[in-house]
């Protein structure tokens, strides 16, 4: 493979990783539409899902442009299988405490908010740094996404504090949510090959370098929330490289079902 092709591959993987993160989290958060704890929050979560779908579309469009051919944004959302998705495993988990994929149950709003918080606390500094990407289309997407991520972070932080420092029940639920999710954040800091290459090429950001900022945000908010900062020890997920949990294939089966039932159709 020549140098240009390799660089494109790296960029494609990197953009897909960012796009898949956005799409998969949007898909999970969409599941709250119409069934949230209070109407205002249905709207807030829908709004954030719209932001995330918007981010995914821009990123996939850029991938389609780079790859050329017949690919469109929808090619990446609807016609890839689980092992081709590059999102963090954190984002594909159901909104519930640990449970195997087919034993679905009630959703837990605490898990949803804790996840939004952990993810957007990363995305604020990450989009911020990506504004300096040498790949200008990515820098532009980063600038737009940064504003959205800041709002997502503010929203999630406020809820983490409210629920952590609310009732005994809400405190216990939020602590359980963070205990459950925290180990999955290790995936942020374990760079994949394409991330390393993207950093080297000046198009990506060294996420491990954002760890201190992230920890400071998380520690401060959890303290405000009277929550214990849980250990992040445990299995290091590798969703970025296509090695997912058992949950993603269910999410995709549902998401892709209509599109795949009508190959080639326009919508």
């Amino acid at each position, binding site marked *: 493979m020549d140098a240009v092709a390799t660089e494109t591959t790296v960029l494609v993987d990197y953009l897909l990783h960012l796009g898949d993160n956005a*799409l998969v989290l949007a*898909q999970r958060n*969409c*599941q709250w*539409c*119409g*069934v*949230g*704890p*209070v*109407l*205002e*929050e*249905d*709207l807030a979560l*829908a*709004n954030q*899902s*719209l932001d995330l*779908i*918007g981010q*995914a*579309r821009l990123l*996939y469009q850029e991938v389609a442009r780079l790859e050329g051919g017949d690919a469109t*944004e*929808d090619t990446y*959302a*609807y016609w890839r299988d689980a092992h081709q998705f590059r999102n963090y495993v954190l984002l594909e988990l159901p909104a519930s405490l640990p449970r195997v994929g087919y034993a679905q149950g*009630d*959703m837990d*709003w*605490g898990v949803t908010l804790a996840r939004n918080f952990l993810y957007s606390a990363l995305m604020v500094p990450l989009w911020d740094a990506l504004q300096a990407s040498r790949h200008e289309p990515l820098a532009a997407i980063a600038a737009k996404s940064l504003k959205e991520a800041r709002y997502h972070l503010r929203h999630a932080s406020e809820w983490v*504090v*409210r*629920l952590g*420092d*609310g*009732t005994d*029940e*809400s405190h216990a*639920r939020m602590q359980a949510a963070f205990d459950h999710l925290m180990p999955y954040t290790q995936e942020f800091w374990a760079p994949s090959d394409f991330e390393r290459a993207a950093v080297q090429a000046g198009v990506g950001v060294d996420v491990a370098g954002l760890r201190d900022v992230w920890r400071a945000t998380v520690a401060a908010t959890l303290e405000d929330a009277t929550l214990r900062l849980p250990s992040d020890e445990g299995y290091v997920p590798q969703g970025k490289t296509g090695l997912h949990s058992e949950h993603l294939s269910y999410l995709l089966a*549902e*998401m892709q*079902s*209509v*599109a795949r039932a*009508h190959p*080639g*159709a*326009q*919508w």
Partner: protein
Amino acid sequence: ADKLAAFQARIDADGRIEPQDWMPEAYRRTLIRQISQHAHSEVVGMLPEGNWITRAPSLKRKAILLAKVQDEGGHGLYLYSAAETLGVSRAELIEQLLSGRAKYSSIFNYPTLTWADVGVIGWLVDGAAIMNQIPLCRCSYGPYARAMIRICKEESFHQRQGYELLLTMMRGTEEQRRMVQDAVNRWWWKCLAMFGPPDSASVHSEQSMRWGIKRISNDELRQKFVDATVPQAEVLGVTLPDPKLKWNPERGHYDFGEIDWDEFWRTVNGHGPCNKERLGTRIKAHRDGAWVREAALAHARKRQARAARAAA
């Protein structure tokens, strides 16, 4: 009696009644019932379309649908606020919905069975809703009228999006066209029933007309809807499932067949295909969300107490 005369005079002069104004208790009750029913319809109405968000067949359509359902939630919020200006709390209204005492639009008791239903709901259900709602923009109660102006604007946008979705599908594969026709077949008659019982059988209408809450009769609105929709169906290339549907040059309107009012009333009275699922879902969402609402309240109290201590 003076107050009542002044009230009626204001209405007759096409003026607006505002929250601080005196109003007859029956007017207040009628409005609370109608506005809250409308608010509940928006919220319950999120469910049938929400059913397809996670499965939208393209990212663009997913975003459009999600934005639309979000708008419906927003309409619910405006309307609850408008109802609150009449001295009732949102919590009370929700309690009435969940206990089955308050109604919501019966159209949401039918299932959304394919992606084409999303388009048909936009085109026909929102179309019928707009037809019903445009006169409400001139409703005598100010807050309601203003909420309706905003809502109607957004609904028209949704209706165009729904129609455009269907146009795209009709230009598509045979199976896509079949889905659209099937959805039209399932929704058409339900949409005609959305205008309510025939004028001959309608109970509340007369008083509501006098109060400037209702301005056009059910049958008139229904006819307007049919007249507006038939040409759109022709452009789209779908058949409306009514063999009696036919232009009547004498009346200058389309004639159409008989609505199955028995089916309509069965559904209104709880025996539609989805009544229990819609309400069951709202009840469960409300119950599952109780800990969140309680925590938010407890946290707000804690903050208040801390602020009070800091100020002391």
